[in-house]
């Protein structure tokens, strides 16, 4: 069989979805593909879709693990609504993902696994290859298992099938390298690095990678190659980064800039645990991590560290935030710096631990006993988790307050091609330290501008004082049950947080600065989808703009003025309307329409566009 003369189609963007059993290495294959795309210069965004079971029974729908990669010549801000290419290693993976592919998409299956035994496990009643359900798709039936095994056994290294089967993902990679018109040599580097200590695994994986590439090149079923050119609007040094890694790094950067040590007290919880993993690696940067016995001890150790002059931080997800609320109140009344990272997931209770949601907003703003205000900010892309973790550290350290940073499962595990920032140019951080033996020091004497108290640290000479959860007297910090004093201190705590609005940037609008027909409002992690939907509608001539909020409490000072410029407002969020409720409480004069979704999934650009058009076309 000779090599085909195949057609190459140039595309602006492509979405590829990898799906297989939890143990099939789909996350790895997806990362490998996205790394190769980033080296090539494509813009990209990725999103893993994994079950909460570690290894559910093989071949079942419950055990399907997926990884979506969106690459582009044009700007990419989301992992993409639907896939152009689906790789399904078994019938269960096909069943789970068929609804997430575009009409006419290319579907690559491992034909070796499409038999009655596997259909039964996946719950297919009819043979999906013969019941017309795949009609209209470009179906590639690749014998991935048998060819991988044959390739490995031809090396005569005495390797069993079980080990050989673990190379199947490299067959898929080889196939994709060809399909996307890429230099297969780039795949070699990844494998050599990955198995650096096991030369035999390098050997068999490389052989299978080439087998996949050669198969694609040879077989007639694959008639076209796709080509996605390097990103057109990006220049500089980039790296791929997940939201969790970016959050961890942002905290380290904030502590470094402020000249204090970072301490993380944390208890493992999906999808926040990676922050603990990442920070535990960075002892080289003086980071201390304390894996606590529970969520409460997580935040309490962080408060203890902050009391001792470190930047205390704790990372968690919704259920953990609930457990931390009492201690957050202690940090509020003792006015100590603290960063609480809440990587939101589907709730309530254990809910959807591995899926994304934005339903902890009310908990973050209000979820404490007593009058207990603290700033709430939210990151809006995997990369800017770095900036907002840094910002959370800055606010906490300069205003002597706990800060809640909201991210979500989608940002935490998703990646983007992130331009590496110049840390030297990031804003300075100046905590309100006190000099030893300062005769004017009093525990609750406040800075007249920010209203924050000073940070006297145990070990400092001549600054002994006592703080605690009991209400304290203004200025002197003695225990006080005086009614008037409690009013004064409660007012100070509220006003101190309100004044943070003087230190945060104004709210920006993407679109018409002078106002227009419809303002789309979102917050946090939905930015990519909302921005793309608004951008595409604007390109189609619609009068629509976006305000994506990162500073939630307090809100930017120009918020009200900005809302006034638009005729209609719609608030889109992955909950039943918590930000909408909040905006109604702040600015009741506007009528806010809502678009809400609670499926554990991010917004799709298409559904947003449909909704916005509907509103814009209303008379």
């Amino acid at each position, binding site marked *: 069989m000779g090599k085909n003369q195949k057609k190459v189609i140039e595309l602006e963007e492509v979405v590829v979805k990898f799906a297989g059993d939890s143990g099939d290495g789909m996350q790895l294959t997806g990362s490998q593909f996205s790394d190769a795309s980033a080296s090539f210069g494509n813009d990209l965004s990725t999103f893993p879709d994994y079950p909460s079971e570690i290894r559910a029974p093989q071949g079942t729908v419950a055990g399907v693990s997926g990884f979506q990669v969106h690459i582009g010549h044009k700007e990419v801000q989301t992992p993409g609504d639907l896939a152009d290419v689906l790789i399904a290693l078994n019938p269960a993976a096909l069943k789970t993902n068929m609804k997430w592919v575009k009409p006419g998409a290319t579907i690559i299956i491992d034909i070796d696994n499409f038999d009655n035994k596997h259909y039964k496990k996946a719950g297919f009643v009819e043979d999906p290859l013969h019941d017309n359900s795949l009609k209209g798709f470009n179906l590639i039936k690749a014998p991935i298992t048998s060819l991988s095994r044959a390739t490995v056994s031809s090396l005569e290294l005495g390797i069993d099938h079980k080990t050989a089967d673990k190379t199947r993902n490299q067959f898929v990679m080889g196939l994709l390298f060809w399909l996307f018109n890429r230099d297969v040599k780039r795949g070699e580097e990844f494998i050599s690095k990955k198995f650096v200590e096991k030369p035999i695994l390098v050997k068999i994986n490389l052989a299978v990678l080439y087998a996949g590439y050669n198969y694609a090149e040879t077989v007639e079923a694959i008639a076209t190659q796709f080509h996605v050119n390097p990103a057109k609007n*990006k220049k500089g040094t980039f790296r791929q980064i997940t939201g969790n890694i970016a959050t961890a790094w942002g905290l380290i950067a904030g502590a470094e800039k402020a000249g204090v040590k970072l301490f993380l007290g944390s208890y493992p919880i999906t999808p926040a645990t990676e922050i603990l993993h990442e920070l535990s690696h*960075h002892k080289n940067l003086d980071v201390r991590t304390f894996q*606590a016995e529970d969520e*409460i001890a997580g935040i309490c150790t962080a408060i203890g560290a902050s009391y001792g002059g470190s930047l205390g931080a704790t990372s968690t997800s919704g259920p953990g935030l609930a457990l931390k609320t009492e201690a957050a109140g*202690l940090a509020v009344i003792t006015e100590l710096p603290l960063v609480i990272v809440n990587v939101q997931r589907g709730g309530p209770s254990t809910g959807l631990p591995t899926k994304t949601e934005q339903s902890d907003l009310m908990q973050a703003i209000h979820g404490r006993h007593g009058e207990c205000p603290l700033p709430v900010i939210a990151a809006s892309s995997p990369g800017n988790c770095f900036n907002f973790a840094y910002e959370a550290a800055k606010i906490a350290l300069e205003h002597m307050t706990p800060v809640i940073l909201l991210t979500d499962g989608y940002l935490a595990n998703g990646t983007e091609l992130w331009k590496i920032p110049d840390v030297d140019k990031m804003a300075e951080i100046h905590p309100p330290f006190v000099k030893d033996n300062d005769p004017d020091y009093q525990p609750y004497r406040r800075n007249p501008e920010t209203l924050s108290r000073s940070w006297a640290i*145990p070990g400092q000479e001549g600054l002994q004082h006592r*703080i605690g959860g009991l209400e304290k007297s203004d200025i002197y910090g003695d225990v006080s049950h005086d009614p008037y004093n409690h009013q004064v201190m409660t007012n100070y705590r509220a006003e101190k947080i309100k004044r943070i609005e003087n230190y945060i940037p104004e709210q920006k609008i993407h679109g018409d600065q002078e106002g227009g027909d419809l303002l789309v409002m979102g917050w946090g992690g939905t930015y990519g989808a909302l921005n793309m939907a608004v951008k595409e509608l604007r390109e189609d001539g619609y009068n629509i703009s976006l305000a994506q909020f990162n500073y939630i409490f307090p809100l930017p000072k120009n918020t009200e003025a900005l809302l006034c410029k638009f005729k209609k407002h719609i608030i889109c969020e992955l909950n039943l309307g918590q930000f909408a409720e909040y905006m109604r409480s702040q600015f009741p004069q506007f009528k806010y329409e809502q678009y809400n979704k609670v499926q554990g999934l991010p917004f799709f650009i298409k559904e947003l566009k449909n909704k916005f058009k509907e509103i814009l076309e209303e008379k």
Partner: protein
Amino acid sequence: MTQSNIKLTRADFQIDGPVKWCAGCGGYPILAAVQKALPETGITKDNVVFISGIGCSSRFPYYMKTYGFHTLHGRALPIASGLKSSRPDLSVWVATGDGDSMAIGGNHFIHTIRRNLDLNIMIFNNQIYGLTKGQYSPTTPLGSITKSSPYGTIEKPFQPGELTMGAQGTFFARVIDKEPKGMERVFINAAKHKGTSVIEILQNCVIFNNDTHEMIVRKEVRDDRIILLEHGKKMIFGKEKEKGLIIDGQEIKAVKIGENGVTMDNVLVHDETCKNPNIHYMLARMTYPELPVAIGVIRSVEQPTYETLMAEQIEQVKKLSDIKSVKELLYSGKTFEIK
């Protein structure tokens, strides 16, 4: 820990304002003993921190002229752990009660001990909830009638010493609030011990559980009902020092020396530094009337502390890593130039 050059006195640790426990509360002699013991440790005053949870005992930091943090119910230990692991230079003391440390903070108690942070934990054990006005606590004796157990408690109490040994504690002592000298001596030993020191203080609550420990600590009966343990000394007790502890089979037994063939040679010698905790465990569990209650340092063994191991890891990793700043971190690993 930095040592003080000037000799401090009790007055250096006394606050100017009033101490607000009930008249006759066991808290007063404990406070006095701590204030007298601290100057003997030589620790710089600026480096002393008192951390507490919630309850009568936990007002303690307000009565010490040092750095202090009155925290949440049950949470003194994790807050102290965060402080000590990030600031090994500080001398961190925890004032807690039987409810604060054994009930709401029970989980933190065992985990703190197993980590062996260098903390000094004083448990004010008055076997009752005082600040909430008289409910039974995890150390209240079985059958006790309290406000929340009008027909008697039906749950077995914890013994702090048992829990400490079970959590691989390196230091456990028991003292009596009426014995200032004994408290001072033990507090000094606890301060010197590198690791988590647990000190159970048999404390009287004059309002809600008056005389709870009287059955064993009353002057007239004390000699027969408690045994003062001293490292390297025979375990003897009684008015005339006529009784001793021996091992009989697998148990500790109190016997009269000279009777039934028991001689002084049979009497156990206290070794607080013995790594094997079995004897310490038996000593900590002794209750009257079967056996005398053990007072003094029961266990004191050296093991690496959490904060030392953490600091060592940091130094090692710093030496090995090429990444010395956030800037270097951001450019580490795989980066992509796009032109």
